[in-house]
């Protein structure tokens, strides 16, 4: 039961975090670094944006759920369980981030979810 809750934590925190981070990074835009000064400027811009901090907080929630889950079950079980987040993420990307998800991308995403599920279930 604990493992189910921990995996739900990985999926929900991870999906919300990915959506927020993707939105934030698109807004920040060009990350090209040509000098050391550039690197610091870009890092500063990213690290101080509220979206980044919120996204990272969600990822931290997902990460600690993952750590706890990994101490209880195999990596090849826990890792693919996060597959359900592909469908959630793609729905979020289409409707919240307004990305163009064509048929090929949807089919691929569903196949990956199925594949990760096959990796996930116990025999």
């Amino acid at each position, binding site marked *: 039961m604990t493992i189910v809750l921990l995996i739900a934590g990985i999926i929900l925190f991870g999906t919300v975090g990915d959506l927020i981070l993707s939105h934030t990074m698109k807004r920040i835009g060009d990350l090209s670094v040509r000098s050391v000064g550039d690197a610091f400027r870009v890092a500063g811009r990213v690290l101080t944006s509220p979206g980044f901090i919120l996204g990272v907080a969600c990822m931290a929630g997902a990460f600690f759920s993952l750590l706890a889950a990994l101490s209880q079950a195999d990596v*090849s079980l826990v890792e693919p369980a996060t*597959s359900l987040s*592909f469908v959630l993420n793609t729905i979020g990307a289409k409707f919240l981030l307004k990305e163009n998800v064509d048929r090929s991308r949807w*089919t691929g995403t569903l196949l990956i979810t199925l594949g990760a599920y096959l990796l996930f279930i116990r025999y």
Partner: protein
Amino acid sequence: MKLHPLVLASVATNSMGNILLTLAMKRLSPSLEASFQAHHYLKMGWTVATDPTFMSGVALLTTFFVIFLTLLSKMDLSYVLPVTSVGYIITALLAAVILGEKISIPRWAGIACIAFGVYLVSRSEKAAPEGQPKPERTPVTAEIPAVETEMSA
């Protein structure tokens, strides 16, 4: 199937980081649980922070995160996430080799599904190469003012 070099780098660092964390957590979990039961929380932090395997895993996952953010700044989330699932294949194979976990026939089927899924998603990105306006998107933004003028007319 051709993937962006940064996608491959993100997959490699993510898989290897997860393997190292698993190795560390499995080894450290008895001592961590003992510290937890004794309410020695600082000792728990010290145990993981001084473990080279754990810290290498964290370093690799940090590198992965920087690469991942760079990918997100350039490409669709609905492209980046599915494509990085190549990492599941690599993690399953590494887990078999390094951690001695079993890969059964259904798991091989899962690996095949993921490989084909990644191929399909990577093909969909080719339709709209990076740096060029996506053809499917342009009409959507162009439609909005058109609708507005019709309504005001």
